[in-house]
């Protein structure tokens, strides 16, 4: 799946949040977005599944293309959101069982076949690395899971509708180091079959898992490229300053 962002600007009311963003991310792998707080990372992420427009006063110009298709052309945001899954900063367990959390999307999209639903549940939980821990308590309330488990449940719920892209907004910021490790390993595995865009505050995380990294500041792209290169031989002075910790 290729993601192309062309001359993309976002305003809330009159305040500009993103200015003329241009970038291209091709194929599988993990694309990390780093930058100081309030630089527009989350807005960029939410632009890719058209959830940014749910916030008040949203205005945009430019184009975002998924496999060449302009996702803002059609009036149908729901179909885009189905293809582009998203996991939030705070782990969200819907107030229902573990199984129903995973099947929330598939049931909405009309899957009724019990065997298929069972398979989707098992496959998604396995992909999210949660199956072994919850296979005997699928009927338990999802609220009983730990923070790290809830976050993997959120990933399983997103994977259950078979998205082509998975967006993650600082998925580990409320998790302990062990859960963080698990999720990072999981993302690396998933990146074999899925395009992943990961917003992170944690530079080490970007360095550990991302194939490509984008640095944003004040709503603009500073630099992006292969992660190793960005961290070891940054082209721009701002990048060098940021990764050495001078400007954050």
């Amino acid at each position, binding site marked *: 799946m290729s993601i192309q962002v062309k001359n993309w600007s976002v305003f809330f009311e009159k305040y500009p949040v993103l200015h003329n963003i241009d970038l291209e991310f091709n194929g599988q792998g993990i694309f990390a977005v780093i930058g100081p707080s309030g630089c527009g990372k989350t807005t960029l992420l939410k632009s890719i*599944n058209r*959830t940014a427009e*749910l916030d*008040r006063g949203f205005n945009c110009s430019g184009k975002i293309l998924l496999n060449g298709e302009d996702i803002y052309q059609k009036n149908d*945001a*729901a*179909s*885009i*959101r*189905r293809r582009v*899954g*998203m996991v*939030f900063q*705070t782990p*969200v367990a*819907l*107030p*229902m069982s573990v199984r129903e959390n995973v099947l*929330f*999307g598939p049931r*909405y999209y009309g899957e009724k076949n019990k065997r298929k639903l069972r398979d989707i549940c098992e496959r998604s939980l396995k992909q999210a690395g949660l199956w072994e821990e919850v296979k005997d308590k699928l009927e338990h*309330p*999802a*609220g009983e899971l730990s923070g790290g488990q809830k976050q993997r449940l*959120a990933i399983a*719920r*997103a994977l259950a*509708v078979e998205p082509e892209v998975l967006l993650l907004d600082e998925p580990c910021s409320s998790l302990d180091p062990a859960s963080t490790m698990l999720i990072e390993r999981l993302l690396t595995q998933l990146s074999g079959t899925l395009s992943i865009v990961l917003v992170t505050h944690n530079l080490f995380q970007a360095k550990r898992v991302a194939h490509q990294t984008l640095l944003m500041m004040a709503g603009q792209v500073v630099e992006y490229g292969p992660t190793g290169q960005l961290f070891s031989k940054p082209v721009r002075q701002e990048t060098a300053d940021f990764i050495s910790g001078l400007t954050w």
Partner: protein
Amino acid sequence: MISRSFKDRFLLATFWSAGLAILLVLTGIIGYLLLRGGSSLTVEFLTTAPRGLPLGTSGGVLPAIKGTLLLVLIAVLAAAVPGLITAIYLSEYGESSKFTTLVNITIQCMAGIPSIVTGLFGYAFFVVYLGFGFSLLAGGLSLGIMIFPVIVLTARDALLAVNEQYRLTGAALGVSRWYMLHRVIIPQAAPAILSGILLAMGYAAGATAPIMVTAAVISAGMSGGLMEPVMALPYHLYILFSQHISMEKAYGTALLLVLLLLFLNITALLLKGRQGKGGY
């Protein structure tokens, strides 16, 4: 350090005595009613119609109990569904348009309308204009108008109190708002919504002004017909003591009414405590 801890203790004592004062007022009212009306609260009182001359000096209040329950039932039937729809609009679909602000202000104002004014409107509109006459239907609908804003406001706040992250999660899956509402948001808010409806029912059961000009009479049979006038507990109480018919029966009626309201309010509180748990 000493002065700070003294200040803390002083404030604590102030708040604590405020709480205690409220408790004393409530137990005082109920205790006094028990003392004066407890003896008249017998099985016969609950199961017979008023008798004697003037009417009410002996016998019971059964038709008034029935009348009050029917009035409340009609009020809730009339107000709950439109109230919920309005609340859902305001919390889920209204965003923050000018129209929503206008609706919100209107409902706040509606909640502040004196109940006798609602009664006057009910009289002019239901009794006279629509030709319902002095009737259960006219009284119930007037009470419905009175409790409508209570239901809207409590239901709106119950819906808004549901974790915003659920809505985002649904949206990110491409799930429609309506699906999200009926599978997640409404079930989560249901205990608090029901609690609001019960509070509104209590409010309707105790209101006298709207029904004294639309539905309630000194004596009515037990027909329960929609177009018939009815007896009602608060109106019966008003007649008993304002006309000096029987203070003893008046206190009995008052006690019964307060117990009914207490029951509704406690049930409402217990339900509200369950908000957001919904079994999970």
